[in-house]
């Protein structure tokens, strides 16, 4: 990130959500890299940018395809790379052709000249990084959004080289590690597909059980299954779905409808309050041993620094005991024992002994054996001639507006996000006294504030097609009319996710947190307030 010529942050406010990563971006910027930020809001990250492209919420594919189209029209695509390492370029070229700069301006709001500038700068840069976060993935077409960006990297060859690449920034300290370990519906540890008989056999043998041959459900799928009455028991470890999932009302109804809900967590979360059984757990990062994997695939050690409170137990201990009750006696396992099992079964982790993790301060997978240094970036194979392994495929993706459409009744686009000093649903961060924290409020453009006759600090009712919440308003000049912003940090106070839609991406199961249609109504005067007529709801 520090040795690159151009950085695009797309749907990412890394300044606040990945502050230390942003240090590295700024090191690059100080060395001369140009920074482009694509975000509906002019965020604190966007304010560092050479150019901010404030697209309309959910128009990412239109913008990406227009950039691709312009690069091809200007003949700036990396022909050698495309020929050597990719497939389906023809279909892509054809598909993006209608996304002219002018059309994209209409779909995204971003002036054609600015789109053109980004297209040319990205294509001409010697080295370029394309990073994204939830602004890309919390949409009903999340995977398509990602594919649209990957297309751009393939088009220009900005992938698999030092200083060039695509970077999805992970939101949690071990969300990558969860995937590594097989906490995906279709994968076993090390990303080995569960429906691949040969791979499965390895696990069957090692574990002396029959691993079910069919992939499982992702979270949104589970809720769908609950809705269909096909899903009866849920074991939640370290999640707070009641507050983190879109359309909270539905979520609560479904969780309450379960026959058996187990929650294992370090704190009694609102989800835990619904549970039949709560298993108090030790905090993974400071009360137990183990590893986590960061956004850059770096496996690093977490260590026990303090004892958990009385009654809270290490996750390994809880799971081992549970297994014992179910008839599988694993004995007393240490974190390292389990890790060594991972190394035996997952080739990409094979070389990462605790000793090496300690000595090297972490290793980036893949690391195939104990002489392997780990890999700084992936996809270097695409630059081999001929390419090693399968070619990287261009994907045809089309722009689709957000599911929750704006209309006269719900004219404002609400998008959600995070602030620097808080984290997700605030289970952990609400416990420290951050001087930055203000009461949760709905951010509105000053123009909308005036249009609805609001004053700053006034409480309003925010309604979506699903529910209403009351919240104070704040005027934020980084927003334009028709765009509003709420965080998800204070669900107890402002249950943002009552408003959001559960339209989920069919491929990844991510809900469209980023695009909700809302209306804003002034609250009725309190009894006792004099001289003012009851205000009618705003149009």
């Amino acid at each position, binding site marked *: 990130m520090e040795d690159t010529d151009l950085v695009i942050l797309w749907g990412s406010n890394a300044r606040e959500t990945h502050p230390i990563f942003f240090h590295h971006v700024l090191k690059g910027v100080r060395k001369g890299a140009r920074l482009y930020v694509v975000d509906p809001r002019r965020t604190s990250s966007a304010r560092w940018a050479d150019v901010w492209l404030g697209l309309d919420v959910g128009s990412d594919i239109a913008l990406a395809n227009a950039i691709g189209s312009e690069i091809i029209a200007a003949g700036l695509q990396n022909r050698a790379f495309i020929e050597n390492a990719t497939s389906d370029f023809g279909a892509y070229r054809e598909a993006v052709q209608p996304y002219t700069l002018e059309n994209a301006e209409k779909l995204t709001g971003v002036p054609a000249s600015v789109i053109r500038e980004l297209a040319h700068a990205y294509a001409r840069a010697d080295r370029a990084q394309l990073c994204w976060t939830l602004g890309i993935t919390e949409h009903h077409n999340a995977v398509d959004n990602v594919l649209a960006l990957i297309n751009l990297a393939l088009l220009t060859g900005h992938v698999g080289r030092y200083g060039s690449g695509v970077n999805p920034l992970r939101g949690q300290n071990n969300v990558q590690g969860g995937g590594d370990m097989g906490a995906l519906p279709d994968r076993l540890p090390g990303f080995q597909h569960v429906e691949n008989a040969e791979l499965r056999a390895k696990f069957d043998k090692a574990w002396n059980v029959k691993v079910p041959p069919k992939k499982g459900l992702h979270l949104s799928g589970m809720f769908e299954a609950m809705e269909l009455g096909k899903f009866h028991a849920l074991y939640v470890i370290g999640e707070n779905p009641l507050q983190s999932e879109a359309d909270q009302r539905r979520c609560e109804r479904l969780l309450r409808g379960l026959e058996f809900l187990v929650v294992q967590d370090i704190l009694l979360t609102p989800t835990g309050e619904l549970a039949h059984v709560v298993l108090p757990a030790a905090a993974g990062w400071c009360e137990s041993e183990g590893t986590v994997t960061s956004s850059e695939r770096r496996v690093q050690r*977490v260590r026990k*620094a303090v*004892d958990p409170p009385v009654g809270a137990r290490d996750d390994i201990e809880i799971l081992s005991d549970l297994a014992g009750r179910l008839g599988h006696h694993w004995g007393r396992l240490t974190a390292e024992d389990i890790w060594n099992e991972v190394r035996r079964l997952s080739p990409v982790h094979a070389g990462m002994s605790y000793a090496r993790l300690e000595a090297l301060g972490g290793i980036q997978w893949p690391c195939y054996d104990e002489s392997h240094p780990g890999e*700084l970036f992936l996809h270097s194979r695409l630059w081999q001639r001929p390419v090693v392994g399968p070619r990287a495929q261009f994907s045809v993706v089309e722009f689709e507006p957000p599911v929750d459409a704006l209309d006269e009744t719900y004219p404002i686009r609400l998008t959600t996000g995070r602030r620097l*000093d808080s984290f997700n649903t605030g289970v952990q961060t609400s416990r420290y006294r951050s001087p930055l924290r203000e009461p949760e409020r709905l951010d509105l453009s000053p123009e909308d504030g005036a249009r609805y006759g609001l004053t700053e600090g006034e409480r309003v009712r925010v309604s979506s097609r699903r529910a209403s919440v009351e919240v104070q308003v704040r005027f934020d000049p980084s927003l334009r009319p028709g765009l509003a912003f709420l965080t998800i940090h204070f669900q107890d106070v402002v249950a943002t996710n009552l408003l959001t839609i559960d339209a989920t991406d069919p491929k990844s199961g991510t809900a469209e947190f980023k695009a909700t249609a809302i209306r804003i109504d002034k609250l009725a005067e309190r009894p006792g307030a004099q001289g003012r007529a009851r205000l009618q709801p705003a149009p």
Partner: protein
Amino acid sequence: MDQRDQKDPWLSHQPRPPVIPTPRGPVPVPPTFPPRRQLSLTVNGRKVSVAEGTTLLEALRGIGIDTPTLCYLETLTPVNVCRICVVEVEGSRTLVPACSRKVEEGMVVKTDTERVRLSRRLVVEFLASSVDVSTSPQIQAYMNRYGARPQRFGPASPPAGHRDAARAGYHEATDGSRAATVGQPVKKDNELYYRDYGKCILCYKCVEACGTDAQNTFAIAVAGHGFEARISTEHAIPLPESACVYCGNCIGVCPTGALMFASEYEMRQSGTWDESRQTQTDTICPYCGVGCTTTLHVQDGKIVKVTSPLDKDVTRGHLCVKGRFGWQFVQIRDPGSERR
């Protein structure tokens, strides 16, 4: 597949399996630069060879010569302002700061001459006579090492309340009977840390960490002029009104305890701070996916402060407000403690 199967979440949605794990390609390496020229220099009569671009400080440390530093930190751009690392270089009219001076071919360096010792001693005396160094073990060690006697300059003047308003280029008349100091009231304007600028040696580290070398927030800078130069927000406004984002990186680099975590400050005030009873454990921050190493300082089973090691490429000693301060939640889970 009939309609019902389409609806069955177990069977619907078959994305094409991505290529993970990716087939093995060549192991990527950062681009290599042409090997650097070796330069030779003489240190205290001994021939030494180092790579071009090495600073004198690195060269000296490389051969085990312990060179004192205060304003230098591996992770920050050398500002060479404290001048305690000065050494003698043949041909140079003045002493040169080892921290920033690059080695040149044929340099002849002396590190322990009377001239060097005098400047180092005076630097320590200047600091100890004008600043409260009671929470800086480093400066106290240097005082012993160089035989500093700051009391030679007379008794310290009492703290002044108006340093923030000092006008550049002017000072109050002195009769010389008391040694001017930077003594002033402690600033406490937020829950997370204290600023006791009566302990500030103006090493610029906090400004660098808040600015271009890490955080790029620029909430503080060196304001004013001369002896009245000071670390300040604009118009000396309290931190909560300033740009401060409470990353605490300034505290992480402060060598004198002028900037201190509220937890540490308050324990010191109440006499319960005891480093001999503390352990330090490296782990990974529980928040976002960047993977910052945090060092938990634990006393009596409680986290008392969080720092970050300098030698990790990801953090280089720097954290954000969540990693630095957002650890309380693990400690308020004792049985019976209320939720939220």
